[in-house]
C-alpha cells in the first residue's frame, strides 16, 4: 500500500469486513504509518465510546399510549367496516360511486354555506379604536385569510388548536416561511402576535418588536 489507508478501509478493517489479503495489507501499512495508526486508534475509540452508550428504557407510559392509539384506530376501522357492510345490498361498484357522489354533493353544500357565512361576517366587520373600556373585537383580512383579534392576539378564523410552534417575527424560520409564502408578508401589518395555520401546522408568530 503506497498511499495512506482510506477511511472506508480502516472502518471495514475495524469491523473485520476485509478479506484475508486486504487485512494483511492494511496491517502491514499500519505497522509503518503513524498517521494511519492515529486515525485508526481514533476511530476505534469512537466506536468503543458509542458502544458504551447505555440503552434507554422506554418510559412505562409508552405501552399504555400505544394501546390507546391502537384501540382508537380499531374502533375507527370498525365504524368504516360497518358502514361499508351496511351498503352491502348494493353491488360494490355502485355503492362506491354513490358514496363518492354523496361526498361531492356534501362538499359543494358546505362550500356554498361557508361562502355565505364568510360574506355575512366580512360585511359586519367592526373596528373599535378609541374606546379602551369597551370589549375590543377586530377582524382583518390579510394574506388571503381572515383574522380575529382575541385578547391581544390575532387568530386565523377556523383555527382552534393551540399553536405547536412559536416563531419570532424576525427569526430566520419566519423569514423563510415568508419566502415560501409571500402572502404572509402582509401580516407585518399586524403588530400583535398572530396564530395561523401554515402547511397544516398551527403556528404563532410573536408580536413585532417596537423599533428602538
Amino acid at each position: 500500500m503506497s498511499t495512506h489507508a482510506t477511511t472506508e478501509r480502516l472502518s471495514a478493517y475495524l469491523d473485520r469486513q476485509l478479506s484475508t489479503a486486504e487485512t494483511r495489507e492494511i496491517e502491514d501499512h499500519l505497522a509503518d504509518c503513524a498517521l494511519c495508526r492515529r486515525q485508526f486508534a481514533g476511530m476505534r475509540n469512537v466506536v468503543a465510546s458509542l458502544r458504551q452508550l447505555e440503552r434507554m428504557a422506554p418510559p412505562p407510559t409508552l405501552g399504555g399510549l400505544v394501546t390507546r392509539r391502537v384501540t382508537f384506530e380499531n374502533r375507527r376501522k370498525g365504524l368504516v367496516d360497518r358502514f361499508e357492510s351496511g351498503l352491502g345490498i348494493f353491488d360494490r361498484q355502485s355503492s362506491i360511486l354513490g358514496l363518492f357522489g354523496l361526498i361531492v354533493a356534501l362538499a359543494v353544500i358546505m362550500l356554498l354555506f361557508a361562502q355565505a357565512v364568510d360574506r355575512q361576517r366580512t360585511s359586519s366587520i367592526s373596528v373599535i379604536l378609541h374606546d379602551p373600556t369597551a370589549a375590543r373585537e377586530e377582524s382583518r383580512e390579510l394574506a388571503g385569510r381572515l383574522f380575529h383579534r382575541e385578547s391581544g392576539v390575532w387568530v386565523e378564523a377556523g383555527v382552534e388548536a393551540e399553536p405547536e410552534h412559536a416563531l419570532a417575527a424576525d427569526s430566520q424560520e419566519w423569514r423563510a416561511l415568508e419566502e415560501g409564502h409571500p402572502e404572509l408578508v402582509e401580516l407585518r401589518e399586524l403588530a400583535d402576535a398572530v396564530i395561523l395555520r401554515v402547511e397544516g401546522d398551527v403556528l404563532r408568530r410573536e408580536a413585532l418588536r417596537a423599533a428602538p
Partner: protein
Amino acid sequence: MNAAAATENPATFSSTPDLDLAVRHRYGDAAAFEEIYRQYAPMVYNIAFRMTASEVKAEDYAQEIFLRIHRHLGRFSGRSSLKTWIYRVALNHCRSRLSRKRFFFQPLAEEQDDAAGVQLLDGGRDPEDLAMARDAERQVGRALRELKAVFREAVILRDLEGLTYEEIAEVLKVRIGTVRSRIARGREQLRLILESSP
C-alpha cells in the same frame, strides 16, 4: 409454504416465527401485536431517541411507529426478517418526521442536552469518575446529533444496535458498499468532532 398461501389458510401455516406473528395479527390476534411490542419496544424507542435526541419526541415517535407497525404488519411478507422490517419502519418514520419538522426547530445539534439520555449505572464507582464518564457520554451523544442523518442512521444501526452490514443494507435498502461507506464516513466525522472539542 409461501407467504401468500400462508395468509390464505393460517390453520395449515407453518413458517418462520416472524411470519407467524404477522399472519396472526392479520387474523385479529391481539396477542401477536402485544408480543411484538414487548419484543421491540426498547429497540424502537432507542432508535427514536438517538435520531431525535429528545425523550419527549422519542416517546411520540415511538407511539407513531407502533401505530404504523399495527397498520401494516398484515402485509409483512417474510422476505426480510421482522427485525429489519421494524427497523425500516422506525427509521423511515423518524426521517419523515424530522424532515418535516426541522424547518421549525433549531438544528439538532443546537437543541439542549437531554440529560436523561445519559444513563450510567453507578456500580459503586468513584463520583469523580462517574461525572467524567457521564460527561464523555454526553459529548458522544452530542457529536452523534451533529452528523448528517444518513451517516447517523448507519452508525446507530452498526455501533449502537449491533446490526451486521447485511442487515443494515436490508434496513436501508442500499448496497453493502454504501453501508460500508456511510458507516466509515459517520465514524470519521464523529472522530473529527470529538477530537476538536475541548
